[in-house]
């Protein structure tokens, strides 16, 4: 650990000590709760029922006589819950007084458990899940507690149906591509809208160095719930921003009672899971010799030893590969990484004021040298009951994060993961005297050792996410809610190259500063009333204003000519500077009306009018309606079947919009271009389109929720059909006009799919519980229409967008194998004949890069205090054309480490080989290069990954009592443990359609301890 981190850690530990000492009241007064759990119908004792106090995570299981006891509970008010399979969950508020023993007997009613959860459906509306009509997936704090992970999005992967989570990089702290129910936009964004404590988070702060995750400021352990709103009924209230789904995150609130202090300390190790197979030094030599033999038959070895090695690498003429010190470049860039975190939270309060405070520090050193992520998080959530009917909530999070990056995504010579593939085994990081070796493929400045030690590119982000939420209860059933939220992100990025890394410029520094202010203001009037015991009404009207303003500036300086100081003051020359700002605004009015009759029939209508500054003056406002209904069939008399506890049919239709298309696409603009003779140029770069408006998505969703066999089997199945039209596409203009295209609302894309999830409780006894869960989503995607009568966009590309095919469908020539006679590559032409020279007309369509099936399955075993949870992630049916693999299998020559597959190259007539013969530079005198896009280069990215596992142990009450703690748990968890895949590249988990050696995921094993005082 470096010294700065040590000091910070010490500081934090000191703070922690002070904090614990400063809250002695936490030890003062304790109470006990005990009682018996019985079946309400028969009066029989229920053994093995779960009894919990949710705020402090304390609990017990009932014994054979149905009795339980939880001792040593800090004074306070808690939510007391009892659950057991086949029974409705029992929940009540309980106040523990000091030194008191409270008896709470519970009689459980038979019925469903799963469907009685409360779901949030936007703008503070809460609804019992049993009445919900839309498609929502979610998590509660309890579930999140058991999931290892450092990012909120990680919870969604393989655990929620309909959500495809692709980690864009294995670099700690980097982003995710989250796709809810497929890709519905070709040129617009496909990101869902994230709302944290009522604040609509911005994902627009771009980074030069990394792919940052906008939710880094939200510490996962502080999350109370995550809800994913998927269809128009659930998300429709968010109108023009809802087409890609909505993810609603609420953080924890304080509870009245004694201060609860919770401490979590975690540490672990990390290593790369990259699948990197390259030729051994001898194999590499043979490969090159074969190529030189092609040039001068029989002379290959001589050319290799006497000309190639000395000329390319400055090695002694005549050397054989055995004489040369070789390097395993993968070893040079990787290391044993680590992960450490400390988190501290306190919550408590009285009847009028409740608070939840939290602070944390995380430091993750990646399994690749020089990549590190460190973050400090602080959160204050306070609820103040000002009068009997007026409440104010303040939620504020401050975070400071720093990422010391390496170039991580892209086929660039200065990115270690692709850079090492350019490096043959005969180059080395350093000379014998410790200086850097300059004979690496792209010279000393691109020697990976120089890149990892003499270049640094840190990204520092300070983020504040906060909201003030007043609530005035006008009557018990009518409330006025306000939400004033701010998401502020300030980012500083540097790229520093010292004089060794950049001798030509005498050192170099690029600095980027960006800040983004994103404000959400809304007010709603919420009504919630039940008439005559069976007519339940839930309604709201509201208005909202959102404004996002981003400004940025950057500059570069060179000429440091020393390596002691690297600030702009120490530079001698400015190389560039620029700066700009941008903004959008959104103004909306919305209403929602829910009606439920007797918990059996529900109807929901919602509408929203959205106006945004992004669109043309003639089409600035749009209308987004949705309608939905549900029917609880199991509550009907005629379906009084013993084995069906719940059966609910839901259906809805709605329209949402996508406005992620940049801020000023509708205007006719002349933009700053270059400069000439001191005058800035104005570039006519956009023609006006005053009718431009958002992409519109119409969704039909039908779902069935069920609970069977005394709730041993619960789950749901949904089918959906989503059609997005008015797609924002560039309508091409003739090049001679001086414009490439004009943005227009044209085209249509359709996504159809099935989602299912099933959870089963396989075994439940007093001491043992075993459950399994499985979810999957099958999606197919098709382009129905493009611009006018146009049948393809980017028609010459290997991934054109064509009518009747998926957005990411491939179109490449068919690979016909290697000619066994002479080792040349062969393809099939349009007519199916062998050819050695393909062209654009020989391309044939192939299945898309999209994943056809995503899902996961997991299991949980609980025995006394032990819990084991395991999750497997499955992604099936995606393909990628990995540019690096394609290049390195083809461009044979000095700058190539040699992919392992080259071992299987054609060597002599008669060989049936997957890879053609070795030729200098990959150039065949009478055939096209092997690297030509073809079906050979489409690789399946399907994989099954043992995504994570966690084994935890909660110490029994006796131990807790002896230690004076209210909870003590230890755990060990693992992430990305094993991957099964046929993919040839580094990691199928980060593979995009045209993957470019993205930073592969890393395996992490953590040990942790949770302590509640």
């Amino acid at each position: 650990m470096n010294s700065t981190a040590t000091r910070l850690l010490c500081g934090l530990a000191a703070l922690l000590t002070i904090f614990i000492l400063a809250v002695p009241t936490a030890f003062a007064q304790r109470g006990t709760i005990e009682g018996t759990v019985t079946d309400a119908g028969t009066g029989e004792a229920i053994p093995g029922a779960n009894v919990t106090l949710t705020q402090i995570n304390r609990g017990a299981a009932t014994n054979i006589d149905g009795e339980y006891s939880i001792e040593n509970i800090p004074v306070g008010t808690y939510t007391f819950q009892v659950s057991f399979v086949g029974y409705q969950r029992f929940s009540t508020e309980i106040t523990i007084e000091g030194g008191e023993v409270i008896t709470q007997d519970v009689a459980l009613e038979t019925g469903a458990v799963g469907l009685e959860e409360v779901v949030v459906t936007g703008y503070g509306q809460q609804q019992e899940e049993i009445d919900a009509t839309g498609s929502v997936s979610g998590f509660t704090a309890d579930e999140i507690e058991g999931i290892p992970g450092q990012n909120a999005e990680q919870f969604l992967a393989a655990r929620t149906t309909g959500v495809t989570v692709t980690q864009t990089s294995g670099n700690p702290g980097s982003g995710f591509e989250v796709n809810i129910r497929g890709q519905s936009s070709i040129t617009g964004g496909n990101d869902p809208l994230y709302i944290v404590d009522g604040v609509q988070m911005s994902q627009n702060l771009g980074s030069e160095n990394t792919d940052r995750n906008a939710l880094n400021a939200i510490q996962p352990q502080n999350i109370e719930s995550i809800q994913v709103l998927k269809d128009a009924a659930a998300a429709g209230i968010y109108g023009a921003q809802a087409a890609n789904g909505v993810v609603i995150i609420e953080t924890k609130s304080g509870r009245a009672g004694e201060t609860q202090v919770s401490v979590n300390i975690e540490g672990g190790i990390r290593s790369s899971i990259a699948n990197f197979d390259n030729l051994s030094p001898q194999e590499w030599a043979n490969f090159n010799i074969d190529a030189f033999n092609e040039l001068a038959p029989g002379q290959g070895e001589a050319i290799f030893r006497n000309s190639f090695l000395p000329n390319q690498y400055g090695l002694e003429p005549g050397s054989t590969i055995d004489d040369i010190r070789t390097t395993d470049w993968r070893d040079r860039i990787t290391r044993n990484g680590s992960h450490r975190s400390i988190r501290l939270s306190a919550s408590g309060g009285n009847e009028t004021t409740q608070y939840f405070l939290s602070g944390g520090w995380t430091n993750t050193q990646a399994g690749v040298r020089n990549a590190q992520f460190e973050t400090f998080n602080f959160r204050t959530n306070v609820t103040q009951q000002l009068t009997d009917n007026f409440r104010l909530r303040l939620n504020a999070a401050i975070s400071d994060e720093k990422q010391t990056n390496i170039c991580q995504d892209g086929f660039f010579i200065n990115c270690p993961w692709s850079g090492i593939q350019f490096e043959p085994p005969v180059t080395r990081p350093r000379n014998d005297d410790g200086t850097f070796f300059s004979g690496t493929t792209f010279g000393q400045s691109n020697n990976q050792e120089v890149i990892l030690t003499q270049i640094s590119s840190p990204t520092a982000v300070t983020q504040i996410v906060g909201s003030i939420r007043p609530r005035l209860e006008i009557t018990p059933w009518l409330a006025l809610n306000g939400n004033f939220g701010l998401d502020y992100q300030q980012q500083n990025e540097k790229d520093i190259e010292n004089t060794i890394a950049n001798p030509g410029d005498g050192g170099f520094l690029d600095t980027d500063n960006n800040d983004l202010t994103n404000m959400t203001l809304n007010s709603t009037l919420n009504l919630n009333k039940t008439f005559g015991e069976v007519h339940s009404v839930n309604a709201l009207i509201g208005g909202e204003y959102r404004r996002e303003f981003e400004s940025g500036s950057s500059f570069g300086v060179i000429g440091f000519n020393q390596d002691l100081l690297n600030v702009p003051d120490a530079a001698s020359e400015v190389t560039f500077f620029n700066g700009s700002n941008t903004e959008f605004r959104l103004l909306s009015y919305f209403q929602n009306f829910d009606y439920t009759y007797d918990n059996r029939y529900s109807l929901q209508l919602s509408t929203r009018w959205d106006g945004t500054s992004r669109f043309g003056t003639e089409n600035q406002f749009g209308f987004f309606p949705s309608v939905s209904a549900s029917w609880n069939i199991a509550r009907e008399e005629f379906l009084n079947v013993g084995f069906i506890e719940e059966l609910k049919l839901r259906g809805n239709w709605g329209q949402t919009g996508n406005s992620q298309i940049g801020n000023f696409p509708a205007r006719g603009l002349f933009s700053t271009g270059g400069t000439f003779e001191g005058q800035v140029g104005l570039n006519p770069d956009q023609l006006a389109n005053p009718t431009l408006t958002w992409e519109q998505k119409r969704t039909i969703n039908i779902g069935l929720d069920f609970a069977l066999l005394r709730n041993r089997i619960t789950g749901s199945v949904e089918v959906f059909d989503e059609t997005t039209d008015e797609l924002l596409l560039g309508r091409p203009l003739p090049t001679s006009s001086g414009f490439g295209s004009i943005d227009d609302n044209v085209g249509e894309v359709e996504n159809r799919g099935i989602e299912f999830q099933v959870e089963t409780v396989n075994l439940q006894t007093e001491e043992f519980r075993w459950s399994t869960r499985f979810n999957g989503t099958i999606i197919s995607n098709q382009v129905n229409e493009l611009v006018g009568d146009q049948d393809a966009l980017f028609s010459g590309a290997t991934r054109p967008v064509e009518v009747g095919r998926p957005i990411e469908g491939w179109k490449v020539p068919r690979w016909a194998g290697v000619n066994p006679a002479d080792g040349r590559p062969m393809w099939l032409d349009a007519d199916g004949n062998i050819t050695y020279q393909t062209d654009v007309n020989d391309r044939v369509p192939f299945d898309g890069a999209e994943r056809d099936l995503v899902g996961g399955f997991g299991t949980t075993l609980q025995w006394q205090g032990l819990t084991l949870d395991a999750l497997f992630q499955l992604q099936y049916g995606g393909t990628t054309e990995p540019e690096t693999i394609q290049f390195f299998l083809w461009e044979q020559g000095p700058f190539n480490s040699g992919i392992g597959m080259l071992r299987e190259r054609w060597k002599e007539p008669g060989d049936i080989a997957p890879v053609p013969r070795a030729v200098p530079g990959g150039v065949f005198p009478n055939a096209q290069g092997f690297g030509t896009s073809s079906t050979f280069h489409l690789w399946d990215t399907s994989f099954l990954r043992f995504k994570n596992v966690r084994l935890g142990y909660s110490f029994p009450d006796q131990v807790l009592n002896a230690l004076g703690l209210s909870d003590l748990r230890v755990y060990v968890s693992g992430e990305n443990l094993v991957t099964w895949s046929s993919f040839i590249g580094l990691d199928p988990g980060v593979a995009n359609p045209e993957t470019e050696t993205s930073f592969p995921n890393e395996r992490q094993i953590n040990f942790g301890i949770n302590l509640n005082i």
Partner: protein
Amino acid sequence: MIERLRQMNSLVKTLLVIAGLALLQGCDASSVLERTDPSTSIPQDVAISTEDGALGIRAQMYDRFHDDDMSTEWLAGPASLSDITWARSTNVRHDELNLSDFRAGVGTFTREELFLGINDANLLINGLTEEAEIALGDRADKFRAEALFVRALLMHHGVRTFGNDPAGPESSDGLVDPDVGPRQGFDLGIIIRTQPTLGTDDAEELPRSTVFEVYDQIVDDLNRADSLFQNLPSGVRTSRPVFGNRAAVQGILARVHLYQRNYDAAESAAAEALDIGASQFGADLAQPEELGDMWDETAGLNSEAFFVISTDPVTETAGINEAISTWYATQWLAQIPTQKQIDRYPDGDPRLEEWYEPQCFDDESGSDLSNQCEDINEQGFEIQKYNEELDNFADHYVHVRAAEMKLIQAEARLNGAPGDPAEPFNDLREARDISTVSNVDIDLILEERARELFSEGHRFFDQKRLGRDISKPTGDDLASEDLTGREDLAFSNIRVLDDILPSEIENNDNLRQNPGYRQ
């Protein structure tokens, strides 16, 4: 009491919340939404109706030449396409041009930029509002003349890249075209566009005009520019050849007439260019001791230039990956002069010493690449015309200069224009401190052009306009026996004309592909 205060306090807050809600609902919605503006763009109507807008459009028109497609492709591309330079073994920049790969040409990337520049020019020629014209005063005509000059320059580069060249009245079909093959008799040039695109209605799908129509338009533009420049009050004339001017107009006119084989006109335009250049800018043939400074930006603009794109290293660089300086000298050393090119210089020719350097060293990363450069020419010379003296990979780009005028005069006179062809030819040789000749022939002129004007966008086009095979380095033309080079590209080969990208043809039903390429 406290309770009452608390209640009042909350009452005030409640009222504030309600007021906020009411305010929100009552806002004038569209005005709230319209109050956003991009920070780096202005509306079209402002751009074309203000003085600052016109100045910005003009700067943009010239800035197009800073783009790598208009500098590296335009100036270095024709050298790579012929026998001047060859790719170093571990760099692939422009090797597709060296090899004349299918569909590889200097127009592939430049074509779009050419039309962007033509649209800028059209805005200045007839797109500004009266309001802007009034604000500009005399500068309105000056800008119009500059724009006509730039439009002509861009169109000429376009038509020589995509079309067969005109052959003058002596040829039966008026074209420099092969006797065989699909290019025979193919007379299409490029699209002529003379109106600015201000809305989608202006973006018509126009067909290509014939080579002859395009040349007529170019000559007409240059003549209009010339008379506008002549009539400008002296106060608004430019004093530096960084903007369009009469010397540049006459220089390009001389080049265009040479391509048209209109030799008398070429001769007189070249002479005119030399006269005006000397009087307006003091531009004249450099003497041997000035040759080094000619391409050294720290010593000022090229002393022979009639039109040069000045480049500010801070804001106008084409960048490390694409700048001509990094391709030739400072980083990538991608295109290295062939042994054949080095052999062109007689002993003691100061150009070899001043415009090349036997030092194949990657200044950016500190790697010695001389081994690889010595495969291309024995001493490992790199080209030094562009080597970022101003730093940040930036160089000025010269588009027309005095030496070319002397060579045009010689060629025009050789073909019947009045005067002794040896006279201008020897003027140049004397200025280069090499022996004079008494008889000039076309091969001597072509060799002198290769020695003098290499990497300024000429070599490939010189051979093409004369109907010659395109020379490629082969055998001894490269230093290493391991390098095979390439056979000459026959003049009849379809690749002598660059193809038009399929995507562009798709977007314009009236656009015809060049012969031999798939429509």
